[in-house]
């Protein structure tokens, strides 16, 4: 696929030419369309079943429209979203059967936990062996942002609902190539307070019928920029004394410092006459590690989804990486669903499938709450933001053959399911599509295509799922 220079630069996110360009090849799309599209990539840890069971309660029995809603999908019905959400079932993420066999394209090694996220979100073939939880290519959200973010101040909003991540990589979803070609994570924000500060601090809420006094605000902003400028200068000076490896670390730090400084210097005016409305500051975050280790993730999801929706409405961002939980999910489910233990042990036990389904439903619910908000926000032409958005929810595994431990287990990437919502680019939502043997990244690619990315592959995975547009 040929790319013009503009598309190339967009794919690069405006940074120096290098390895990142290679992964943007094949990606093209709308530049600064008058009607912007939005993209959300979400993820919930663990699988859809428990033990060696060959079943789930997420996939409808009816194929096509008017599908039946089963226990794990119940929030979709409860929130009135059945016509907005499509279920894609029968997906397969291939694997290598031994530690020496090459990993198939877009596949993973036989080891489960560290290795099923990257191929789904990036399409990039995983490493052989146990792996380390890092993808081998940039994630779709970053690639999409390179095409549709335009001049929005936040190219990608990376948030995570689960407050206390078990481990850094397990709690990361969004990865991009920096200017020197290194794949680096965009750490998710888990604090609603920080998410708000990062997105909305510095703005003045429009005052109907009057001109707000912004002098105090401008002074605060000027001071913040002044501090950042000073610290950046110090980082620059320090860099000259550092060895090569530390210099690279400091360069990355400096780049991010400059990014914040730039964001504060170029705060756009919040649009008027739209659904855009500066949210109220969320105040103190819910405590981390409360009863049973629960950190009130429900409230966190409420606020974070509010912020994503309003960032879209206010044109502060068009792309979100919205992680519900870590992979290998150790979120304790006692308060969310009543199960006395974490999601990980739940799927390994011999508990009733309904308990696992309730945990899956809890993740679906957090994702669905965002859809409700996007559906309620209007564009200037009267349509909803959801009409021009594509959202995908991926899971860590499905059920079936487990090549790591042998036999059947939740550590399987057979019978995987992805949910997709929104109507951007002609997505026909509200259907159950059986896509036997298709790769989950093909659902992601479908969403990418829907928002205007004209690529025909994501990483090593080729082709979207045409039924989603029919």
């Amino acid at each position, binding site marked *: 696929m040929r790319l013009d220079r503009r598309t190339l630069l967009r794919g690069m996110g405006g940074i120096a030419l290098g390895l990142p360009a290679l992964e943007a090849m094949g990606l093209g799309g709308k530049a600064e369309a008058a009607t912007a599209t939005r993209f959300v990539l979400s993820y919930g840890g663990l699988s859809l079943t428990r033990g060696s069971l060959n079943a789930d309660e997420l996939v409808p029995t009816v194929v096509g429209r008017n599908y039946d809603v089963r226990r794990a999908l119940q929030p979709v019905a409860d929130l009135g979203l059945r016509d907005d959400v499509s279920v894609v079932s029968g997906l397969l993420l291939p694997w290598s059967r031994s530690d020496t066999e090459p990993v198939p394209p877009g596949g993973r090694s036989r080891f489960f936990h560290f290795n099923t996220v990257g191929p789904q979100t990036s399409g990039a073939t995983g490493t052989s062996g146990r792996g380390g939880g890092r993808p081998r290519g940039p994630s779709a959200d970053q690639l999409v942002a390179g095409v549709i973010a335009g001049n929005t101040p936040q190219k990608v909003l990376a948030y995570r609902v689960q407050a206390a991540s078990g481990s850094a990589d397990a709690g990361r979803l969004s990865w991009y190539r920096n200017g020197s070609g290194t794949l680096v994570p965009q750490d998710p924000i888990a604090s609603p307070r920080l998410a708000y500060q990062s997105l909305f601090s510095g703005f003045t809420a429009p005052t109907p019928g009057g001109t707000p006094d912004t002098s105090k605000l401008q002074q605060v902003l000027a001071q913040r920029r002044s501090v950042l400028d000073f610290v950046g200068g110090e980082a620059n000076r320090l860099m000259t004394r550092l060895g090569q490896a530390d210099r690279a670390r400091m360069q990355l730090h400096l780049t*991010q*410092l400059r990014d914040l400084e730039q964001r504060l210097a170029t705060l756009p005016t919040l649009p008027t006459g739209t659904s855009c409305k500066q949210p109220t500051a969320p105040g103190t975050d819910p405590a981390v590690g409360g009863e049973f280790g629960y950190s009130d993730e429900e409230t966190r999801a409420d606020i974070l989804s509010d912020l994503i929706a309003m960032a879209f409405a206010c044109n502060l961002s068009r792309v979100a990486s919205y992680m519900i939980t870590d992979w290998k999910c150790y979120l*304790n489910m006692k308060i969310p669903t009543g199960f006395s*233990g974490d999601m990980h*042990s739940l799927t390994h036990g011999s508990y009733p499938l309904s308990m696992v389904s309730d945990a899956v439903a809890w993740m679906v619910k957090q994702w669905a709450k965002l859809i409700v908000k996007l559906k309620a926000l209007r564009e200037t032409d009267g349509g909803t933001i959801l009409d021009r958005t594509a959202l995908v929810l991926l899971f860590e595994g499905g059920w079936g053959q487990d090549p790591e431990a042998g036999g059947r287990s939740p550590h399987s990437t057979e019978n995987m399911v992805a949910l997709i919502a929104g109507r951007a680019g002609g997505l026909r939502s509200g259907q159950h599509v059986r896509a036997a043997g298709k790769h989950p990244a093909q659902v992601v690619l479908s969403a990418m295509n829907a928002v205007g990315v004209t690529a025909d592959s994501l990483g090593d995975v080729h082709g979207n799922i045409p039924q989603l547009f029919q």
Partner: protein
Amino acid sequence: MQSSWVFRAGLALPVALAACTGGIGDGIGGAGPDDPDQPRAPVSGPPAPAPPPPAGTPVSVSGMRRLTSWEYDNTLRDLLRDNTRPSRAILPADERTPFDNDYTSQVASKTLIDGVELLAGEAVQRLLANATRRDAVVGCTPKSAGDTACFQQFVTRFGRRALRRPLAAEEVTRFQSAFLPLAVQSGDFYTAVDVALRAFLQHPETIYRVEVGAPVTGKPSMFRLNVWETGARLAFTLWGSPPDDILLDQAQAGGLTTTAGVRSAAARMLKDPRARELVARFHGLWLSYESMSAPTPELATAMQQESAATIGRIVFDEGRPWQDVFRLGETFVSDLLAKQYGLPLPGSTTPKWVGYGATNRQGLLSQGAFLSNGAEGGDTSITLRGKAVRELLLCEEIPPPPPGVDANLPAAAPTACKSDQIAAHSQGGCASCHSLMDPVGSGLENYDALGRYRTREATNRTCIIAGNGALSGVGTFRGPAELSNLLLKTGRLNACVLMQVYRFTMGHKTLDDADRQLVMLLADRIGTADFKLDDLLVDFVSADSFRFRREEG
């Protein structure tokens, strides 16, 4: 299974550390001449080449380490007297190795930058709202909004604490030029203090532990830390916090250039409560209970405090061998925890020392914090408990099932006992690994994941828990007390904790040849005998190796 060199090293040379008073020696201790390096201005051009360490001194690789959220909170506490500890869940999560400070996995991200900016701004706001704290931090009373002398004094004094080194004159001038005009403009001296403090708290040399050092003659990529870097390394190793003024003064006076000087500084630092907190945190991360959860946060906190108190009493209050942490016959409980463990109630809502009596409990492994390992579905997993003991306390790695092994057990009857289900692991391809884990977990089954004693299984009350355990090749046991004694008997516990202390201290999990050489030297010196953890730490930080670094790559 025990493929680690550490075990060999640990068993090879059982020499008690207690006998080792003049440094570790053998090429890593104080055998070399005193360091001729003199304190020098930190930013005044490239440092002069330094002499190499004594021949054979292993020198570790080190890179720039970002402060963990715990260390950043400590920094706010020590610099600003701010005890709010706001960083957790604002700063990005760190990889657990099980420690949270592996710099090789740290990446600067937007979340870090935005998070530090938020934390710094709010911390300074809190400070300025409290005149007492503010005045203590500023250190002088301004005579006017643009009081140059007071501002310079503040920047010089505070800057030395924040950046862990004296500021060069041109640096003070830079702060003054950038920020003092804002005070003049606003008519308020503290406007400049506000922005300068925010700059300090976001300064790369505050957020990161930067080590450069002087190039060592004839040793490409090897550097000798300057006295400030040595002081900072010492402070973060022993306190998880920046140096205080006393340590900075010692560095300034050249007191950290000799083994004796560092030993003396370290001895003082180990008497500080910060050392106690750091050692407690090390154990919490190592034994995986730092992030434990319980039905109520109060219960989790009580258990963590119980374990911290046990460690603090043995290591710091009574100066006993570290191994006594696993032998102590008393524990630190309030009525809440005493009820939990079936101990006599101390009649107090605040914890007191209570004897374990005849409960067959002893030391750290009998406490709810450690016993939270292997919690699964509101009960315990026998296998995961055994795995935790093997991996955490013996530093073994249990491999995943090999290809082709069917891990699906025959369906058990709903009424089957856990012991029957576990017995199925002893069949076929499962047996080789499960025989290492399951017998260990079985020996702890009488204690649930909240540390309560039980005789019957949680999910099937008709199943009597046998509670018989075994550590293959070592012996059999029943309960955490006997397991503790067996672990101590293996001698491997010494080697394992030593390696974990090293990883925690140096901030990287993966060890290269020099790291392994260093750990082996320490392990050989300690052997299988009891040792005092504070002595070990003093020996480690005063070794020549501690004052050098190698560049990555």
